[in-house]
């Protein structure tokens, strides 16, 4: 039995997909020249004032609805005061005492286990700019393009007890925020980043002292950082040292976490309600309007896939990982027919996903359209294509070598041979050409049978229906 219990809570910053910043009209597009997307408000000129972007609130409401949370009818923006060069006002506008989203949660799957992770809250805030420490020879460059970008900070209860659960939660959350279209989920660009609060304790002991790992921007780093941190904390305690509350950074190069600041030098942020902004009031009819426009949510869709298409929970969850993938699947089934749902699922999750992955493409830009895939699946179902030939058709479709499966089958003569009168003469030829194999088979070597099948398939260029070949061959050899 593991003598240590791990307790993990995550704080995730999801950058909201609004056109302009949360308190100014400047664009939020990524990748502009430094400081070209920072207006007077973003650089905090004297006298400027923030004005809340309604779209950011819409995003928060969508999120709250999607996780079954309470949307606060009245929430307050507060100032979090600290000095840093990439924080132009000397304070960050955030929400403190009363956030816009309260409670709710997400169901995660780890292996066969299902678990509900409770959320504490989600609140709106602005991002800071970036400090660029390279390229300036002993100086620091400041880029304020990101300053004022809207963020939703999503905070869980300390409900997770392994890095696997934390990653499952992060993936599930990532899937949800992209699903409802509030975040582009681009982790490399920092649109979705996690802080992990980790502590360990003996079973039934009170919560241990936590350390917070900041800014993890990939699922792999999240896993590595937590695993390292757990082991580090256990070692510390077992060697008789106490864990000090601290904020730590994960170094992907070394795979280690190191302390950034301890509790003693923790800031007193002097939070207070921002007098420049009125309380955020959200009326029930606004919530209702947004609710009506929400897409079917992943969990509802997964349940529907199981009922409607007889898919396993795993398949349903895999297909509904993104809205695009679910949509592709449903379009495929619509064209291929419900009876082919399982085959469709297998192709979307299998060959298509692998091929997309290999070519680093998204399903939205798949070279094979859902109807094309469906056309091919129909030919598998009606026996025209063997699964082997189907792979060739798939490859041809991928490379744009034909309008649809039928055209490719026609052009390449890939149609499966299921006509006994056409196959039989070929079998006869193979048998007479391989007397040794026939002898061996009759002597009881089963392997010889397979060799003969291989020869027949070769002779038909793989087009013969394998099952039919088996039957006919057996009959011939018996005769």
């Amino acid at each position: 039995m593991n003598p240590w219990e791990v307790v993990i809570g995550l704080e995730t910053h999801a950058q909201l997909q609004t056109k302009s910043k949360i308190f100014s009209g400047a664009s939020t597009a990524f990748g502009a020249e430094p400081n070209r997307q920072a207006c007077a408000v973003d650089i905090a000129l004297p006298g400027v004032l923030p004005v809340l972007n309604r779209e950011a609130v819409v995003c928060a409401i969508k999120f709250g609805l999607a996780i079954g949370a309470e949307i606060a009818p009245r929430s307050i923006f507060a100032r979090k005061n600290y000095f840093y060069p990439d924080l132009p006002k000397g304070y960050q506008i955030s929400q403190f005492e009363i956030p816009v989203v309260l409670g709710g949660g997400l169901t995660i799957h780890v292996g066969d286990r299902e678990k509900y992770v409770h959320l504490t809250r989600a609140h709106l805030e602005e991002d800071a700019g970036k400090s660029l420490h390279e390229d300036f020879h002993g100086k620091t460059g400041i880029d304020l393009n990101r300053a004022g970008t809207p963020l939703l900070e999503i905070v869980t209860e300390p409900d997770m007890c392994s890095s696997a659960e934390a990653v499952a939660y992060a993936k599930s959350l990532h899937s949800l925020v992209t699903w409802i279209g509030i975040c582009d989920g681009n982790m490399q660009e920092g649109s979705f980043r996690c802080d992990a609060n980790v502590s360990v304790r003996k079973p039934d002991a009170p919560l241990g002292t936590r350390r917070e790992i900041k800014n993890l921007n990939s699922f792999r780093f999240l896993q590595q950082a937590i695993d390292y941190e757990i082991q580090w904390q256990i070692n510390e305690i077992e060697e008789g040292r106490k864990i000090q509350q601290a904020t730590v950074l994960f170094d992907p190069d070394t795979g280690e976490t190191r302390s950034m600041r301890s509790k003693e030098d923790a800031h007193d942020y002097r939070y207070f309600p921002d007098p420049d902004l009125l309380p955020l009031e959200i009326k029930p009819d606004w919530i209702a309007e947004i609710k009506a426009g929400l897409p079917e949510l992943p969990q509802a869709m997964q349940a529907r896939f199981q009922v409607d298409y007889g898919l396993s929970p795993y398949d349903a969850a895999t297909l509904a990982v993104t809205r695009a993938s679910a949509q592709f699947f449903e379009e495929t089934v619509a064209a291929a027919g419900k009876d082919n749902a399982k085959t469709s699922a297998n192709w979307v999750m299998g060959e298509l996903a692998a091929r997309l992955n290999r070519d680093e493409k998204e399903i939205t830009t798949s070279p094979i359209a859902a109807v094309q895939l469906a056309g091919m699946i129909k030919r598998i179902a009606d026996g025209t294509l063997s699964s082997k030939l189907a792979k060739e058709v798939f490859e041809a479709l991928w490379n744009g070598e034909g309008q649809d499966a039928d055209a490719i089958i026609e052009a390449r003569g890939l149609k499966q041979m299921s006509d006994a009168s056409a196959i039989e003469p070929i079998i006869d030829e193979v048998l007479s050409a391989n007397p040794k194999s026939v002898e061996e088979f009759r002597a009881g070597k089963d392997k010889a049978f397979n060799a003969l099948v291989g020869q027949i398939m070769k002779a038909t260029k793989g087009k013969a229906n394998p099952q039919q070949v088996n039957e006919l061959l057996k009959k011939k050899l018996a005769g």
Partner: protein
Amino acid sequence: MINASLKELASALAEKKISSVELTTLFLDRIEQHNPMLNAFVTIDRAKALATAQAADQKVGADRTALTGIPLAHKDIFCAEGWRTTCGSKMLGNFTAPYDAHVVEKLNAAGMVTLGKCNMDEFAMGSSNETSFFGPVKNPWDTACVPGGSSGGSAAAIAARLAPAATGTDTGGSIRQPAALCGLTGIKPTYGVVSRYGMIAFASSLDQGGPMAKSAEDCALLLNAMAGFDPRDSTSLERPTEDYARDLEKPLAGLRIGLPKEFFGAGMDDGVRVAVEAALAEYRQLGATTVEVSLPNSGLSVPAYYVIAPAEASSNLSRFDGVRYGHRAAEYGDLNDLYAKSRAEGFGDEVKRRILIGAYVLSHGYYDAYYLKAQKIRRLIAADFTAAFKDCDVIMGPTAPSVAFKFGEKSADPVQMYLSDIYTIAVNLAGLPGMSIPCGFDRDLPVGLQLIGPWFGEAQMLNVAHRYQQATDWHRRMPAAFAG
């Protein structure tokens, strides 16, 4: 011409008796002549002012407004594009605003001509103009005395007739108290009536811009141009456009004037009391009745204010860090040293004092006892006014406990200085409109009568002030030394 009302100036301009260029030149010359003594302006730009005046002279027909071609001065807290905007601080001594404040934009659009930027207490923190980095402003009535603050430069400029009108801001009395000490009329509108966009923030929940001029009528015209919804200020109120001059001539018969007993107790100078009582007698002559009201929590307004205002200021002034603009220390070590030195050098003592108080009252473990409690008091004070306005239409009392005091008289004792705003601060805490009008003299220095109205009661308050000014001539008096 220097004593003319805005209306008179407007008709002289319209009738081409004088051009805006001539009028502007007249005031620029007076500024050149008298400013070295008064220090009312920190920035003057003759070329820029004359270019605007010339443009105003070109305007005809529908392009002209009641204010086109009339010069005015801006408190140096308002950003004006291309103008150095210092807020009275070394911190912004080198800052040229790249944009116009809403108020500046609106007055420019009305065709007014900016003469220059007026001196003020540093970041509007002060009641005597002694905290300005650019040196104190002198009171034209007695140059050994302070003009009041923080809009002291604006007040001195108008009193000495260096400008026909000026903008001011009022966080705890900064329009009304200098108006009183310089014998002027000034109005702080209801919070949210005038946009704060481009007005450098001191205490965001209390700051409000407003006009300062020689009369209520002038203030009404200016307020018409300054007020209005601005989507760039979330606390700006979206209301139908008002003509603040619409009720100026209304008779006062039946007007109920509330006199808070707390404003007439000890602490007020006798000379001030005499002038205020005389003004009330005049109002009774005009048909008004007076009734005693009570603002039981008004005694808590100064302490509540000196928690809330510094708290907001400590945060508002964090942006002045020497990183992007403003003063940066010439030499520094690490980042913290850059902050510490730049801010230590850039801010004066009073600003530092308030930042320290503000940071303290917001800090962990003290927030509830100070900031939250002060906010509760604030609500009680607002409730007091609501109750009082059940029995009266307008509240009156002294604007300040004394007339202008001598330089150095209170600057050594911050608490004494803070008490100069004892009658004005509650109005900001409650977000109400307040005014000061001249109502006499004490020892040859002007006394101000304060008018406080219910929310959005500006038009009525201006009417009440205007009728008094039609019956009296205190507002026409000017310091003799500047008559020539």
